[in-house]
């Protein structure tokens, strides 16, 4: 039969192509660490087997990828996939039971928008058990700029709000000049870049602008940008925009600012001395944060208007959202195993070099306890 012949030839052709191209059978790379000895698929008590799928915040992508890599050195038989499509997508996919846990830049919302609230839908997905908000990665948000010859830039909340609102339009505006005495600022207009997709970074940053902008920021904090400027897609887009555009500024996760070699503004939080963005200064701001969730729900409320000396106030807490109960047993074991590693000192230590801030010990132990309570 010719149709069959057609199909057969087509199939064989493509298959043989694949075989040709991939004459060696595919495999996963050897773990790069030395911790796992040859040929031992370490199946210890805390190393189950299987596949975990997760999705959500792109702000924690680099962190979770690093932790997955490290985790696989320990537990080689667990496959963890993380799809960094955004917090909203993560929660949506989690609630639709498409993934085993979600990453999100904000805790599940408890107030109902239309229909059930996020938290209620998530509880339904967990067979009527609460879903936990587990703070896991602290990502400082940098105000990144690209101005020739400007190595150091100091901003405070009000000035930042004015720049991003569009009321301060040039680099040599008196507001900026006052904070940067002795620095020659160009007279060029400021090109602002913002995230054109809805993002937790935008939400946290606008929370900061609203809290410490002294009324200069007129919009409500939201995932969608309401200020001035030109929008680019995702963190990579805004970082690239600033990199390629002179006299521009944006807000972006710290690691993108560092990787793209952009200038990072120091923030005068009102304490008098400008604070440079470091893991330490970001950690200090987190210490001012409060856990607002009850029991094992660890949703946090950050104090964006903190005036503590040496605290860098613009930080982003990304959560892992997981079922407290209600997943199938093998998935529960996997979730517990992976998240425990994520919250361990080991897991958190690897984040510093990626320009994230580790969880302070006090919060980390709470997170760990919450994870252990998952059943």
């Amino acid at each position, binding site marked *: *039969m*010719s*149709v069959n*012949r*057609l*199909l057969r*030839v*087509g*199939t064989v*052709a*493509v*298959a043989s*192509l*694949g075989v040709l*191209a*991939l*004459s*060696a*059978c*595919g*495999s*996963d*790379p050897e*773990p*790069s660490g030395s911790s796992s000895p040859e040929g031992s698929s370490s199946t210890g008590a805390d190393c189950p087997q299987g*596949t975990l*799928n997760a*999705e959500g915040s*792109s702000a924690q*992508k*680099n962190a979770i*990828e*690093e932790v*997955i*890599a490290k985790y*696989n*050195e320990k537990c080689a038989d667990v*496959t963890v*996939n993380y*799809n*960094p*499509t955004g917090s909203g997508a993560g929660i949506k*996919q989690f609630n*639709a*039971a*498409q*993934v085993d846990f979600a990453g999100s830049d904000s805790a599940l919302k408890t107030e109902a928008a239309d229909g059930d609230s996020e938290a209620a839908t998530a509880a339904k997905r967990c067979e009527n058990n609460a879903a936990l908000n587990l703070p896991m990665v602290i990502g400082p948000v940098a105000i990144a700029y690209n101005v020739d010859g400007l190595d150091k830039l100091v901003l405070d909340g009000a000035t930042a709000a004015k720049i991003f609102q569009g009321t301060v339009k040039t680099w040599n505006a008196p507001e900026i000049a006052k904070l940067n005495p002795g620095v020659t600022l160009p007279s060029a207009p400021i090109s602002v870049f913002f995230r054109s997709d809805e993002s937790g970074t935008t939400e946290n940053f606008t929370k900061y602008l609203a809290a410490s902008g002294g009324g200069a920021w007129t919009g409500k904090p939201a995932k969608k940008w309401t200020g001035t400027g030109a929008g680019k897609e*995702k*963190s*990579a887009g805004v*970082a*690239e925009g600033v*990199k390629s555009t002179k006299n521009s500024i944006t807000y972006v996760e710290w690691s*993108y600012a560092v*990787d*793209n*070699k952009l200038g990072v503004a120091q923030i005068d939080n009102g304490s008098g001395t400008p604070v440079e963005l470091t893991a330490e200064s970001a950690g200090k701001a987190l210490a001012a944060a409060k856990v607002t969730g009850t029991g094992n729900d660890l949703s946090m409320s950050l104090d964006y208007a903190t005036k503590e000396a040496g605290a860098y106030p613009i930080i982003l807490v990304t959560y892992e959202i997981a079922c407290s109960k209600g997943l199938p047993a093998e998935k529960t074991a996997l979730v517990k195993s992976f998240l425990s590693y994520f919250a361990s000192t080991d897991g958190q230590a690897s984040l510093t070099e*990626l320009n994230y801030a580790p969880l302070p010990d006090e919060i980390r132990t709470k997170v760990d306890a919450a994870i252990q309570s998952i059943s």
Partner: protein
Amino acid sequence: MSVLAANKPAYDGQTLDLSGKSGARAFKNTLATVLIVLAFAVALIPLLWILWTVISKGYSLLFDANWWSQSQRGVTVRREGGGAYHAVMGTLIMGLITAAIAVPIAILGAIYLVEYGKGTKAARAVSFMVDILTGVPSIVAALFVYAVWITVFGFNRVGFAVSLSLVLLMLPVVLRSTEEMLKLVPDELREASYALGVPKWKTILKVVVPTAFGGIVTGVMLGLARVMGETAPLLILVGYSKNINLNPFDGFMGALPTMINQDRTELALEPAADRVWAAALTLILLVLALNLLARLVARFSAIKSK
């Protein structure tokens, strides 16, 4: 003849005036030559530039044996190493499933249009619908499958869902090219077959389709090449996995376009940037290989008519 009449005005100004000064005509000719060569040069610059960018930045990883045999498991954007095996396999698997669904429908649909429904209202309706399908942007096809597969049926996002949306994109391409090829099969062949008492369905399968076989294969391969480079359905319908997953019905799956899409957010980091260009080059080579294959198959299967 109304067609002709409608066309006439376009020609009125184009009569050859051979009595003009030959200097002016020669000048025009030279000018046209210069412009055409210039257009060629202008076109070639960006096209070569793109190819050069991809090849020069991507070739080195392709010579690494691991590139063809390993996945990206445990490899982060800051680390070298790993390969594209998971993505190549994912792309091939999804492409093959797409072809397995789209090709029979497309060929049978074309057979219907050419052999059975010719000129009927029903055939015109089918033809019209194929036209509509040609106009469906990939993102709309992906949204549709998302709505059906996940919202209505409540299934998980898997490679198969991607294949379903790619079917919508591949179907009209293959159907149209097959239709054109079947139309070129001379009716004498059919009539000779009928005259020998061969039933119509056997005539189609044994005479018509084999005659057009080469062209059909070419169409299939090109349709496949087109859908393999699609990004939008992959973003919406399957999670990207850095691990090897050869099961299109379960779990996330890697693919070359999504591999590019993942690492392109970290272009500032060298290992990620290298992988972006290498994956792009791999995809181009894969498509190129398919095209060459199609040509080979077409050439060998061509029915000699003398």
